[in-house]
């Protein structure tokens, strides 16, 4: 049932902090979307709660992508959720140390996360526990690097013929 609730963002934040307390680390509205940073321990329960709660009903996973924060030596995930019932979009972020980049899979919550998680593994090396088929999807299967990490160079460093000092890549 669609109810007129003046500030749905506040409702989401209130419900999440009531349920999970300290695990909701930050929340702010950036440009027009509520961004909530969630501790890695409760990310799966938080997503399930967001999907199943009768007042929030975030039934659609818009996209899921990885992030690399080199200054904090962390790898992160960003979920964009969309509630078709209430026409509300939010962004959920988590992060983990690079030494152990493991997150629980979201394919049990939304099957569309299957390939999105494979792409994130392919690009960042983030492992998803419980994923049915976590292999590389876009790059060659025998690649050993994770290309979208910031320390992976954009261009082939072994070339002698190009001078990139003026327009650094």
């Amino acid at each position, binding site marked *: 049932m669609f109810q007129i609730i003046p500030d749905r963002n506040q409702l989401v934040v209130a419900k999440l902090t009531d349920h999970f307390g300290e695990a909701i680390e930050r929340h702010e509205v950036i440009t027009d979307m509520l961004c909530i940073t969630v501790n890695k321990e409760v990310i799966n329960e938080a997503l399930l709660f967001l999907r199943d709660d009768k007042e929030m009903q975030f039934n659609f996973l818009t996209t899921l992508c990885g992030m690399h924060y080199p200054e904090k030596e962390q790898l992160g995930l*960003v979920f964009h959720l969309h509630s078709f019932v209430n026409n509300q979009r939010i962004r959920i972020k988590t992060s983990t140390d690079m030494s152990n980049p493991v997150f629980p899979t979201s394919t049990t919550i939304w099957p569309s996360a299957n*390939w999105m998680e494979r792409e994130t593994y392919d690009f960042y090396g983030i492992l998803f526990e419980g994923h049915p088929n976590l292999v590389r999807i876009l790059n060659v299967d025998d690649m050993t690097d994770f290309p979208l990490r910031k320390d992976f160079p954009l261009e082939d460093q072994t070339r002698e013929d190009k001078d990139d000092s003026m327009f650094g890549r």
Partner: protein
Amino acid sequence: MALDLDTDYWDKDVVKSEEPKEYNTLNVGPTHPATHGVFQNVMLMDGEFIVSTEQTIGYIHRAFEKIAERRPFYQITPLTDRLNYCSSPINNMGWHMTVEKLLGIETPKRVDYLRIVIMELARIADHIICNSVIGVDSGALTGFTYIFQDREFIYEIYEEICGARLTTNMGRIGGFERNFSTKAWEKIRYFLKTFPRHLQEFENLLARNRIFMDRTINVGPFPADRALAYGFTGPNLRACGVDYDVRVMNPYCSYDEFEFIVPIGQNGDTYDRFIVRQEEMKQSMHIIEQAIAKLDKMEDKDTYYASDPRFVLPPKEKVYNNMEALIWHFKIVMGETDIPVGEVYHCVEAANGELGFYLVSDGGRTPSRLHFRRPCFIYYQAYPEMVMGNMLSDAILTMSSMNVIAGELDA
């Protein structure tokens, strides 16, 4: 439609083998005329029926998300061209709107209406390709050859506006690079006059054709709740019965001032997807007519970019004659402008669904992270579930009716 053979009657003399079934492996792709683009399906077949498929994509992966981290915002537009290359203006406009959202630029109404004209033309072009190729994949090549002349004409319109036909790199952050010429308007009006009749001719060949209906009704049906779980958007989701359209849910670019119907289907089978795309083309024509009426009523016929000199490249005449424009041009191109720190997600209704751009900026000249939410990539995951247990020819038609474009699949 699957044949309902009375196996008790026809197979009564056949000795049923006690051995386990032997399956064949059939490799469809990556170079195959039926797959529109390079992607591979290894199908395990029980005779003519598909037991399972295994998909391989990534043959045209060009690392756009990595490249975008090293390109200033205006240099990322050519990358977005090559996502869904059948309707590249929509990708370009979506990207420009994302950057405008980050920078806080508000485009004038005339720019919005011009963008809507171009985006709807691109949607028509993409649906022309998809629908005529559904016909080709089922053996009906005539409609394809006639309706493709209209796609050629749309490309001539693009050429008048930006110079290119397929990968248009159209527009700038804040508007367009030049006003639409009189020749462009003549071509757009000519297209509006002639296309409805051609579209009806094409539809008369296929939509109520007994053979086409037998080949496409109940082929690859998909229930709405599974479609939502698999992240379907766009015509594929609307064919399943869910009326989700980004232009209506989260209006952008003044779409809320326009009246149009969002067509939906019932079963989500190939026939529904075909008819939904046909209706969407007609609705796009209606939107273009409304946009042209609004543009004709406006007194201002000269604005084609937002007046925000900090981020919007000035026109070349001003750059060569005016000192301030020269300085702003230099600052924007060399990256000396103050890009705000922040992140933004903007989505547009592309021809295949919700095309989203997640842009994270750290204040530098290039994005810190750019992620494309590509509709093809997300809904193509459902293909094995759609074709399991069906025959190979049905699977080919299901794939072409889903409008999987390899450029958008791999980025």
